[in-house]
């Protein structure tokens, strides 16, 4: 098995491109998401993206705010108690970004269908309502008939719907811990990351921690994302910040509001990027930017005990740097 460690710059350069179908996950509005990866996409100027995300998060909020998103498929686009996603909503109401709405359940089922390589997924939800009748892709017709077409159960004759399966070109998936081969452990809800990791054509993991494979061999039932489906592993501490990562850090309440407020306008977004996206290149510069005081506060999470069993396998920054060098080798 190959050492798949890669710098975030190299991973974004290699696995993203203008016009691509990009999927990020968990795509929780407040918890785990591969946000650091999306920020690097902003830095590298990606545009015209077709984004598939189970929910909105600070990642797609930012990508849409900078005008990089042509189209988005989503179950929930807000930031939960942190409010409506101002950047995404601005792009949608201005007509810049086409939004195709589903429910959260539907998005998960569609990843499942993609992982199975089914041509469609039976739909008992999202039918008989405007998620079936309104189509961002086919706006001229109401009710739309091609978005969630009807099918008939051959056993009972019951009418139901059919979802399009999802097979995104690349998924950037946040995990709590990964080894250098791409075996990964998620703490907290998986959301749809298990299915997403099998549905995507290429998978990049963005991991808060790199651990020794010994951790996987002690806890193989926790390893839900497997090296066999992973193309690259990016180490990025606090990679979900300002969102949370279960076991490691809480969401940054202050910054969540601040960032989302900035996304309200193009100017605010530019200013935000100048201050919070552009200034760093390395993980340590990133951590310096967030600041030790803030980090101390965020990492004093009530969930920290969930990490206890795994601490002994965590690679130090120096070890990760060496492993990254070896991977470049």
């Amino acid at each position, binding site marked *: 098995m190959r050492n798949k460690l890669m710098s975030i710059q190299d991973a974004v350069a290699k696995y993203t491109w203008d016009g691509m179908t990009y999927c990020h996950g968990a795509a929780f509005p407040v918890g785990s998401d591969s946000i650091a990866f999306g920020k690097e996409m902003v830095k590298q100027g990606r545009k015209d993206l077709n984004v598939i995300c189970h929910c909105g998060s600070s990642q797609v909020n930012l990508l849409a705010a900078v005008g990089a998103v042509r189209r988005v498929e989503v179950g929930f686009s807000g930031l*939960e108690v942190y409010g409506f996603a101002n950047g995404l909503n601005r792009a949608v109401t201005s007509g810049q970004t086409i939004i195709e709405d589903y429910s959260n359940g539907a998005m998960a089922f569609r990843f499942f269908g993609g992982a199975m390589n089914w041509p469609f997924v039976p739909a008992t939800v999202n039918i008989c309502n405007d998620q079936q009748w309104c189509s961002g892709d086919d706006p001229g017709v109401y009710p739309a008939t091609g978005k969630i077409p009807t099918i008939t159960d051959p056993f009972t004759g019951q009418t*139901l719907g059919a979802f399009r399966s999802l097979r995104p070109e690349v998924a950037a998936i946040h995990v709590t811990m990964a080894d250098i081969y791409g075996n990964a452990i998620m703490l907290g809800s998986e*959301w749809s990351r298990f299915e997403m990791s099998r549905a995507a054509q290429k998978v990049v993991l963005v991991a808060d921690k790199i651990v020794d494979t010994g951790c996987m061999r002690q806890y193989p039932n926790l390893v839900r994302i497997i090296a066999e489906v992973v193309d690259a592993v990016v180490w990025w501490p606090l990679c979900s910040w300002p969102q949370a990562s279960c076991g490691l850090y809480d969401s940054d309440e202050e910054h969540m509001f601040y960032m989302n407020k900035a996304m309200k306008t193009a100017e605010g977004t530019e200013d935000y990027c100048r201050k919070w996206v552009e200034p760093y290149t390395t993980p340590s510069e990133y951590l310096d930017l967030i600041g030790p005081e803030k980090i101390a506060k965020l990492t004093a999470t009530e969930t920290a005990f969930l990490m206890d069993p795994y601490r002994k396998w965590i690679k130090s920054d120096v070890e990760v740097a060496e492993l990254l060098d070896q991977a470049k080798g």
Partner: protein
Amino acid sequence: MEYTKQEFMAIVTGREIKDGQLIILGVGLSMLAGYFAQLNHAPNLMPFTEGGVYGSTPVGGLPWGIECNRISANATSFTNAIDALGFLVASGRCDNAVIGAAQVDQYGNVNTTGIWEDPPWRLGKYVPPRVRLNGSGGANDIAVGAKSYLIMASHEKRRFIEKVDYISSPGYLNGGDARQRCGFVGGGPSAIISTLGILRPDPVTKQFYLDAYFSFSSVEEIQDSTGWDLKVSPDVKVVPEPTEQELINIRTVDSTGSLRKKG
């Protein structure tokens, strides 16, 4: 004891939650109502979230999201969306739920997707909304699948309207047996709990009528705040005041007082 409308609404919603129910909760008022019920009168309630977080209670205040660490610190299981929204909710297994609404109509259809100048159903085509909201999230799966569920909404005329701009989560659609004809496994909304009172669906027409009002409101205020010709139950009642114990319990759940600050 003084209380806010939001607190009262959460208490009244909590009263609709029975012990032993399997219930899916969202952030904010939904979790507040659910965990209040668990603390107050439903110790065997089985709450879970869309992400598949089971067996937990909030720590350090109401969660910022269903995946906030405040709800993840004492869980007995973390699974995933397919489990929670598919196996337990869309399947018809879940007993109860609490969802919110930006708009709700006479048949309990809920809009959380957007506000239009002219909605798609009237325009005959889909245009981007004037105001984008959040989309349905898991509420559509709940609306279709849960055995029954509760809708919470702020009682204003612009929100309680005859026909919502966009049906994000279907209630009884056009009323009558429209819902059954769609083959939905769940029973539909059992009540709309507003900031002013409780509306329930007519057993036959499925149009929501006023069943009870809060002591600080009135039948007239509620009818004035409702965008359809709101029928009133012949034995319309005043909703019992929150007890001291109920207020203590709801504030135990809302430990940071987020709901006390509001309206």
